[in-house]
């Protein structure tokens, strides 16, 4: 168990403490926010630890090649190429998902802004009508001649 594992365990424990009022933590209102933050930080540390472990393992593999003065085999190259392709596919899929999410969010913001503008215009029109009525309280309503 490396140092990062203890940090991750501490982060999770801190998260539990902070959201539990019985343990002296804050209100349930902030629970989701706190949980998200501690989970996010724990994920980052775990991710860094995983990469570190993989690099360490790979460094041992390269060191073994160097110690025995050997070249990487065709199988070793091909294994890397296969992993490279899989990672590129995953990254491309992640990019599409992010861009779609961002586009949807932008569309939602535009729609909300448009809806707010329409409400404002409608309210302005209503106020204008009311103001006109108050300026001319005894006046004939529009189109009264037709009635």
């Amino acid at each position, binding site marked *: 168990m490396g140092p990062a594992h203890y940090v991750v365990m501490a982060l999770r424990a801190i998260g539990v403490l902070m959201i539990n009022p019985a343990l002296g933590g804050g209100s349930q209102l902030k629970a989701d926010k706190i949980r998200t933050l501690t989970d996010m930080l724990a994920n980052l540390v775990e*991710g860094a630890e995983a990469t570190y472990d993989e690099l360490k393992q790979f460094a041992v*593999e390269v060191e073994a090649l160097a110690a025995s003065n050997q070249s990487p085999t065709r199988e070793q190259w091909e294994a890397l190429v296969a992993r*490279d392709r899989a*990672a590129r596919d995953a990254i491309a899929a992640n990019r599409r998902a992010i861009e779609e999410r961002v586009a949807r969010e932008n569309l939602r913001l535009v729609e909300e802004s448009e809806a707010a503008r329409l409400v404002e215009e409608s309210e302005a029109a209503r106020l204008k009508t009311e103001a006109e009525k108050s300026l001319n309280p005894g006046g004939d309503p529009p189109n009264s001649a037709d009635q």
Partner: protein
Amino acid sequence: MTRFFRNFTYFVLGVSLSLALSACATLPIAKARTLEQRAYAAYGTFVIVEEQVARLTSDESGLSDNAKLALIDAVEAAQPTVDGLVTAIFEYETARFDFERDRIERGAFVAVIDNLDGWVTRAVPIVDGLLNQTEGR
């Protein structure tokens, strides 16, 4: 509470950075001796970083969309150089096979070696930079 979060975040980023620095000290490229081993180490390191970026940019990751896109941009910017490296590696493998069977001249083989050396020289700082950028997050 906000101040606590800020200090707490700095603490975690500090730990991540320490891990990154430890990782730099054990970089596979530093262990390689021959050109082929250096090429293999550079490519393998890139693949490990790329896999980390795939994890960090997935839906399960807690990073913001902007941070995810920045990581993807960084890894995609490195890909053409890495592609050049991979092509040079396989050209070298073929040339070495032919040279050992006297199918090509020494000069032609040396040119292929120089080409691979050039791609390794270009790829190593890019992979290093990418590693630091990814680990810092």
